[in-house]
């Protein structure tokens, strides 16, 4: 990192190299042998995610939908209703833990657990900054794609174990949908992996850093990258059962889909898993196509915006805000579009997205081989 150009102009305090230096210093802070600074930096995204997943995902969804619909949304608990979700969780905690008598108790109980674990396991390979990643696997991307598939098991266990026809419908639809959409999603991500030449999430992010900010992102590195980007975004909506692909939990057809019979804390766990995987796919798309923790701001001459906004804390900030942006887009779509039908969903997957994903794959390969 170069600081030589900065003294030419004097940026205001807490913008530019001041914050940069501060975050660098924090990263280097150690008390005897204990890397306290790194732990603090690592805690920042985790706190964000925990806050988001536990409360502000649901709150944000309710507020965003309210603003789109000329309503106020939750307003009563706390200022602007910000404590609403906490109140809801407290309420859910107090609920009786009901297992229907006719249900398969083991599957019914284990289902939400598998879902929850499946959606949060992928967080291990998400890099939240140059210094922080849970596990920098050399097959990180592959692991992330694979671990999402674990959710299918949880959904099927929940739907089958409930011993309810609507739950079974929801579970079967969901499994068909997630398994089908994994193909275009995986191929689209492979395009990103091809451009990087590695499957390690941290490496993919590192390869997208450079002084011109967003110009180094894979989305802008090749003229065809928008195609896998779009395909993965659509497929990720289907993988997380979000509208317009929320067919497994279509409330007007299947009551509530695979979690019809769930109540209390098990219901809350399913909900947390859903919001967790929403963030997860948003983070993956940001890492593979939009540079992950890299700052999108370019260096313009002496105005070294990129240098000023790069660092461990900034990294966490960028990836969290990119993730939140995609979550916002997901919510936006959910509150605008009607729901597709099952056969239309499968048509879209097998006859539109998958062929186009292959086309994108071949084109990316050609681009990578013949264009330096």
């Amino acid at each position, binding site marked *: 990192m170069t600081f030589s150009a900065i003294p030419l102009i004097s940026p205001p305090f807490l913008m530019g190299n001041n914050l940069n230096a501060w975050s660098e210093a924090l990263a280097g802070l150690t008390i005897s042998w204990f890397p306290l600074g790194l732990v603090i930096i690592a805690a920042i995204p985790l706190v964000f995610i925990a806050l988001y997943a536990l409360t502000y995902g649901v709150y944000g969804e309710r507020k965003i939908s309210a603003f789109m619909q000329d309503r106020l949304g939750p307003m009563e608990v706390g200022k602007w209703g910000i404590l609403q979700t906490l109140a809801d969780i407290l309420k859910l905690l107090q609920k009786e833990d009901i297992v229907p008598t006719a249900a398969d108790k083991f599957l019914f109980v284990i289902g939400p657990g598998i879902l929850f674990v499946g959606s949060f396991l992928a967080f291990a390979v998400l890099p939240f900054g140059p210094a922080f990643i849970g596990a920098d696997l050399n097959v990180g991307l592959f692991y992330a794609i694979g671990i999402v598939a674990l959710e299918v098991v949880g959904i099927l266990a929940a739907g089958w174990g409930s011993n309810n026809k609507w739950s079974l419908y929801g579970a079967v639809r969901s499994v068909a949908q997630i398994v089908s959409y994994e193909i275009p999603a995986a191929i689209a991500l492979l395009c990103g992996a091809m451009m990087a030449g590695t499957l390690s999430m941290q490496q993919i992010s590192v390869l997208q850093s450079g002084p011109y900010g967003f110009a180094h992102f894979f989305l802008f590195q090749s003229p065809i990258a928008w195609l896998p980007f779009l395909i993965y975004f659509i497929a990720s909506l289907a993988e997380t059962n979000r509208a317009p692909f*929320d067919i497994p939990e279509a409330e*007007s057809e299947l*009551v509530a889909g695979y979690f019809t019979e769930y109540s209390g804390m098990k219901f809350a766990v399913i909900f947390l898993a859903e919001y967790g995987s929403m963030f997860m796919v948003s983070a993956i798309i940001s890492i593979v196509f939009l540079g992950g923790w890299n700052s999108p701001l370019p260096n313009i001459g002496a105005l070294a915006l990129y240098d000023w906004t790069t660092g461990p804390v900034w990294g966490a900030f960028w990836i969290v805000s990119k993730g939140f942006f995609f979550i916002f887009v997901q919510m936006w779509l959910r509150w605008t*579009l*009607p729901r597709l039908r*099952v056969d239309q969903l499968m048509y879209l997957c097998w006859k539109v997205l998958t062929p186009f994903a292959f086309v994108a794959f071949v084109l990316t390969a050609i681009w990578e081989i013949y264009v330096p």
Partner: protein
Amino acid sequence: MQELGMAEQGSIRVSRKDNNVVVIEKDLATEEMVLSMGPQHPSTHGVLKLECLTDGEVVTSAEPYLGYLHRCFEKHCEMVDYPGIVPYTDRMDYLAGMNNEWAYCIAVEKLLDIEIPRRVEFIRVIVSELNRIASHLVAIGTYAIDLGAFTPFLFCFRDREHILSLLEWASGARMLYNYIWIGGVAFDLPADFIKRVSEFVDYFRPKAVELCKLLTENEIFVKRTKGIGIMPPDVAINYGWSGPMLRGSGVQWDLRRNDPYSVYPELDFKVPVPDGRFSDIGDCLSRHIVRALEMEESLSIIEQCISKMPGSEGFNPRSAVPKRVRPKAGEVYGRAENPRGELGFYIQSDGKSTRPLRCKARSSCFVNLSAMKDLSRGQLIPDLVAIIGSIDIVLGEVDR
């Protein structure tokens, strides 16, 4: 063979011939499952129960079971006097109370043979057309929610709220008005009511266009409704369909035009029917479009009424209201165009009593719902939801 409402589900192929015969081809026989949809189900619009036989996602037959909301309307009518029945009619189709009251009053007024003041007729047209818009807003909004779009529903309810406030101002109640009385109306319109109604008309016109852009022109919405649940016009007439359902099948039949009552002959309005360019005639999308266009027509009817309405000088809304309703012996059938179709009341009087000997209501959605079994055969479960939504039932009127 024209493939309409096509569904491919593994080894099962469902297709539809031109004459509305559903063909289910199966390579592999599987066991059919009985799926009980309702009475507690989000998309049955109340307490309708559909007992479906399903083969995977394909519904091979769906039988509606009624009566969960049966409140003995017709028996009650034999127990109360004629004006006392008016509030009960509100509770039949609770989304269009004004129109129900009016249909009942038309029947009794025919039996009594009384002359209605001209201003009363205009007031009745205004309030019932407002109520028609409110009712269609609910129909469109809940149809959107059946298909998974939540926002149009709330937009519809936001606009409906304005109508309900207007009607509350006129009658004192938001849904169960008891406003239209035999021979008159309960109260004259409040002083600035007409001004506020024209403000609402100006406000609502762009909102209706916005709703069309958001929902009717939405690609996914069109995909979900076009070609689904097609009802040919001859079958629709044989089933006794009426209202937007029949017009959706391309039959230009509107009681306001074909059997005119009140001041409708003086008013200029179109009877919208689908022309087959945007939708297949008789499908769910046609019925939705008919409702959307009817709201516009209602707005223009209201505007015309405002300009033609006589002033309120020396007007007594109850001048023609009989003190004691005791019709001469006889029977009568009075009908009016409800938002859901033809609502008719058959009343028999013995000439001695102040209570009807018999009062039978011909409910439009009950008749429309009777085609459910035919419409649902061979559809997918999501399409079944789309079809029920397009019928726009109000269980209060189906079960009475």
